């Protein structure tokens, strides 16, 4: 589940890409606050990834330069889901997790907290252990992809902090999650 948001603040980098003559293959015209033809130093040439932008942390989430020639910044998905009584990250989230690993590897000042959760079924302490298992599984994946373990903290809230208070399959699926929170 990729979510791409373009931040208005990135108007400058957008302009830089425009100036760099970066051919955008996508049809999407991302709306930006201003498109001021500001000359930014350094003016970059042909390469697709012209400048190394610093990832930005806001509200626990991280935004990185959009990949693959897309303009602007991309906010990484911070939620990863699990099947009932399982501690294996659903395959759909693997690619995004790899991006998180890269971000952590590239910037040793970044700290991340993996918050593990479970749905309400079953007992509370067992669910705390399950939440921790899930967060550990995400940590293992990140570390395997190169993220330094020292930058990762694991915590579990079990069933104590659901996002959906419903008592049905749909709610439970939303609550079985690990949240990647940047600090």
């Amino acid at each position, binding site marked *: 589940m990729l979510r791409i948001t373009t931040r208005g603040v990135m108007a400058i980098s957008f302009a830089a890409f425009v100036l760099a003559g970066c051919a955008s293959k996508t049809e999407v015209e991302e709306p930006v606050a201003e498109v001021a033809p500001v000359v930014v130093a350094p003016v970059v040439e042909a390469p697709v990834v012209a400048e190394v932008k610093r990832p930005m942390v806001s509200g626990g989430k991280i935004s990185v330069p959009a990949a693959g020639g897309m303009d602007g910044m991309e906010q990484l998905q911070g939620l990863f889901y699990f099947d009932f*009584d399982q501690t294996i990250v659903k395959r759909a989230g693997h690619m995004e997790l790899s991006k998180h690993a890269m971000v952590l590897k590239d910037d040793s000042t970044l700290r991340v907290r993996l918050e593990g959760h479970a749905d309400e*079924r079953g*007992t*509370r*302490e067992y669910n705390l*252990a*399950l939440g921790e298992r899930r967060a550990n599984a995400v940590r293992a994946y990140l570390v395997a992809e190169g993220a330094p373990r020292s930058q990762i903290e694991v915590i579990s809230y079990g069933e104590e902090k659901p996002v959906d208070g419903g*008592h049905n399959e749909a709610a439970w699926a939303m609550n079985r999650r690990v949240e990647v929170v940047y600090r």
Partner: protein
Amino acid sequence: MKLNAYLITLLVVCIPVKSVLADLRIEVTQGVDNALRVAVVPFDWRGAGRLPENISDIIDADLVLSGRFESLPASQMLSLPHEPAEIFNRDWRLLNVEYLVIGHVSPVGDRYRLTYTLYNVFKQSVELRQTIEGEASEMRDMAHYASDSVFKILTGIEGAFSTQIMYVTALGPLTDRRYRLNIADADGHRVETMLESKEPILSASWSQDGRYIAYVSFEVDSRPAIFLRDVVNGTRQQLTNFPGLNGAPAFSPDGKQLAVVLSKDGNPDIYILTIADRRLRRVTRHYGIDTEPSWSPDGKGIIFTSNRGGQPQIYQIQLDDLSIERLTFEGDYNAKASVLPDGSGIVMVHRREGVFHIAMLDLIRGRVTVLTETSLDESPSIAPNGSMLIYATQYGGEGILAAVSVDGGVKFNLPSSEGDVREPAWSPQKRRMFKPISE
């Protein structure tokens, strides 16, 4: 959701059973078929002014909430005796009342003397007569003591009316929760808040002597830690602060140790913490999840939940040689077990056909009996008399507490006025003890 299970089963003589000022209301949803018909006659007050509490109301509510009695409303009583000599037997046989509870309260200095009599209408005989004394602040306790005495004579079972229930409430929207750890009388009155927090509280448990409680709180840096509180003098200390899980504290029968769950060594395992010197002894060593320890009554073993076999099941470890034995083989999820006071069985959360119930495993016969008709059940806690248990469940989208007798015959709900209620723990001791005075 089986809503019909929550309709109040009206007893023939119906008294709305609610504690008017209580935070927890009690609704009996199923009583025994052959409930005893009892009349608690309003007690006589032989002093000036008003009594701080209505003793006969408290006794009446206690007996009815046990689900084993039907009571006669005072408005239907033909006479109001306070002493055996004043009993006109025909007035009660006419109304099919089997037992009378009558009594009076007299002032003694600034204390109160309560005398109560249990009278058998058919045999026309006094089965119990006691006098106890106490202060104004103990009046509810005196009434509960009377209820316990009457209950014991009529059913052979120790009453649980003088006990307390500890529980957690969660209030407010999911994004801005407030948690409270409360202790209330078993009839829902006199709620006291032990802790209020914006972070979760869970796994509260009592020491066997009722003096201490231990619980898990996320208040420090939003991470779980175990706290110990002296209920008598209100002081508390933080006992653990390890990385990872700090959970499921359970007092040993002698009160000197706590079994706890820590994941600091890589995965959740059970440790024993000696309270006095904080020494830790590791008890389980398995890469699976080991959690929810509960002591056997003799203190020599611990039963716990483990998924070492794949799914959560109940295991027992002997503390002398650390040998482990699996106890549950029925159902694909068994957890949060506790041993009955007489050691004959364990109650636990048990999943059958996808539904979470409370069930009892008879340790002698190896049979599992489902006790509840509710679902999404969790946290069973046994009353000190070993015949009732309280647990948490869902009703109308809200967390409530419910209780059921260990034989499954009596059921009641305790909906609270305060948000979601969960994690009940029945105190092992009575709140006050009285010594009957011989007259």
